[in-house]
């Protein structure tokens, strides 16, 4: 085999590997994208019926309930327009508080309950997760629009 052939072979192998890698990466990327929805969007049925997504908003005051086993908790998340019920098993983060911002990742059950696999709260007193803030902004904007009508 001449040097030139060798080089062609090498380039071809390199390109094939590159294509395979690119396909694998984009596939894995697509299947792991998690989209974000506000409670209003969920109410309107925009969220996926199966598969994970994120919701965000404020934890409604007085809505936090601990179920009898001591580990399952339920609370309501609101974007000030619509509310949805969230259930989570496990220990809530330290900064989780009623009346404060929260983001949860999980799935909708058949009954419309949001079963969270992960709950993220803000990291300090003055800080609101951007997703939660965006959800409330969107609800406010929608309200303002209706007011005009």
């Amino acid at each position: 085999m001449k040097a030139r052939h060798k080089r062609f072979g090498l380039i071809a192998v390199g390109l094939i590997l590159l294509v395979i890698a690119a396909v694998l990466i984009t596939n894995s990327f697509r299947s792991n994208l998690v989209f974000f929805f506000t409670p209003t969007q969920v109410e309107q049925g925009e969220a996926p019926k199966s598969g994970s997504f994120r919701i965000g908003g404020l934890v409604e005051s007085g809505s936090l309930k601990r179920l009898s086993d001591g580990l399952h908790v339920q609370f309501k998340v609101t974007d000030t327009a619509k509310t949805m019920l969230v259930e989570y098993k496990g220990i809530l983060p330290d900064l989780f508080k009623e009346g404060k911002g929260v983001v949860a990742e999980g799935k909708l059950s058949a009954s419309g309950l949001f079963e969270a696999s992960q709950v993220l709260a803000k990291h300090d007193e003055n800080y609101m997760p951007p997703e939660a803030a965006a959800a409330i902004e969107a609800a406010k904007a929608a309200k303002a629009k209706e007011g005009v009508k």
Partner: protein
Amino acid sequence: MIPEIGQFSLILAFCFAIVQGVFPLIGVWKNHGPLMNLAVPAARAQFLFIAIAFVCLDYSFYANDFSVLYVASNSNSHMPLAYRLAALWGGHEGSMLLWVSMLAVWTIAVTLFVKDLPETFRIRLISVMGLVSIGFLAFVIFTSNPFERLIPAALDGRDLNPLLQDPGMVFHPPVLYMGYVGFSVAFAFAIAALLDGRLDITWARWTRPWTTVAWVFLTLGIAFGSKWAYYELGWGGWWFWDAVENASFMPWLVGTALIHSLAVTEKRDAFKVWTVLLSICAFSLSLLGTFLVRSGVLTSVHAFATDPGRGLFILIYLVVVIGGALLLFAFKAPSVGLGEKFDVVSRESMLLSNNVVLLAAAGSVLLGTMYPLLMDALGAGKISVGPPYFNAVFVAIMAPGLFLMGLGPLAKWKKASLPEIGTRLRVAAIISVVSALLVPFMMGKLTLMTAIGVFLGIWVVSTSLILLINRIKLRQSASTNLLENMQGIPPAFYGMLLAHCGIGVFILGVTLVKGYEFEQDLRMEVNDVATVGALSFKFEGAQEIQGPNYTSSQGTFKVSNAGKEITLLHPEKRFYPVQGSMMTEADIHAGVFKDLYVSLGEPLENGAWSVRIYVKPFVQWIWAGAILMALGGILALTDKRYRIANKRAAKQAQAAQEAFEA
């Protein structure tokens, strides 16, 4: 008064940075001696005034001067002294001052250690460091002044975020920043070399130790951060693929590639253009990381409340620095020669594939980190990329690279023979395959991922040992004294072996903890016992205790193995009244083979608590591996070659000068 002195010093430092960054470059261009000679004194003056500013701010923390807004927002008179001093980098303004201070430390180190380099190159190098500094000082002075007064003064401070009140706060940020900023030196070397038209072996030899030091700091900084997250966040994770972690990991990946490509440039005079590009990339990613962390686009413990003006400033700075560097690269790179040829199977091509793998990994991390931000900026909705993406893609890309890591160091430069390498590595292959089957079997469960992980970990370590044996054998023709032979091998070689073994140890840690960790959230009443295999955790109740600036419920757990008591664990749930926030302090019994980890959730009725119990096998190996890598880097730095090279280059330059004058 003190804060005003600090602010004034910062402004003076800014002026000196302009002197350092602009005039000497003009001097070199116009061949004007006095202007060129400004570089070193200006750099030292800049360092002095930044140091004064730093001390002034930390003094304000020390003295609890709550008339300074930044101190009032990040400290509290009840906080222990060490945390008050470390609170300097607990918020946005101070951490930018830390950035600038680190840059000043690197600059002063450059002025002290590069005395022997040719004059124009040295002047350009220091000037480029000055240019980098101008931008950041302007950022601190105009958008993030840490010395701003608060009138009237606060009675007491708002306290530091309780998450940050931890010994990790004292070490993690400075060490990480030292690494981040350290790539500015490699960057300045690359730019100076492009300007000087001096991309050759000596340039690579000068850059190498600086790059290695920065890499050592970055490695340690990331490892400290990971360890801190492990015990502080209370859910036992050590890496979350959080955007801020990724921001520090990408420069590390590219920096690792740079270290290897510099080796090729130094030894074979090849890969020159590529090495320059990597130097620019590594620093650009450091800057991008700063942008991500400091602009407030991310939700993270690292992101401080921010205003958009700052993000815009950093973005513009980013575009100027990276754009300028790439433009210069585009103009100058074509004139650089190609270097020596090499065969398909050779050390060079092995190192090239190392670079491709590391860059592909960095690229996939970049995609996952930036895509959600881009989508958000374009108004296409809020998206996040889950850890499964990073895990799958990163492992798939790195695994072949790790396999090649065993072959590469054994391949000869220019042209190597695969069958020969294969014969040499037969023993390593057998050991690795046997361990890949045996270790998971001993741990109780064999899965494909654990088998692959153990194989790669053992493979990297065993091939390194075989490499060492080979190297000693090579020398045996000269002398039969084993000790003498071992001493004859340069420290850089041992450094490489140690760092590679560190990777192996790290992989074993990751594989075993991922494959065999056990976690459980449960409700425990007083005297309840939870069992995990032969281990039992007995909850003996929780009691109130009082800390300096918090109150705490401290639980007591008696941990026994097959009835024999191992240890008492005291996890805490703390309440910090100033910020009104709760904090989980896990308690960990760390061991070589496993960590026992208990943290308290919430108090339930009748003294019962929700409790989280983890058993994490081999988790400490993760950080031990990182420390081995750093030690390897330090060992490589002690190589005599770098000092001799500097002296020799100085002599040659001097001889050339004399010949020119004669």
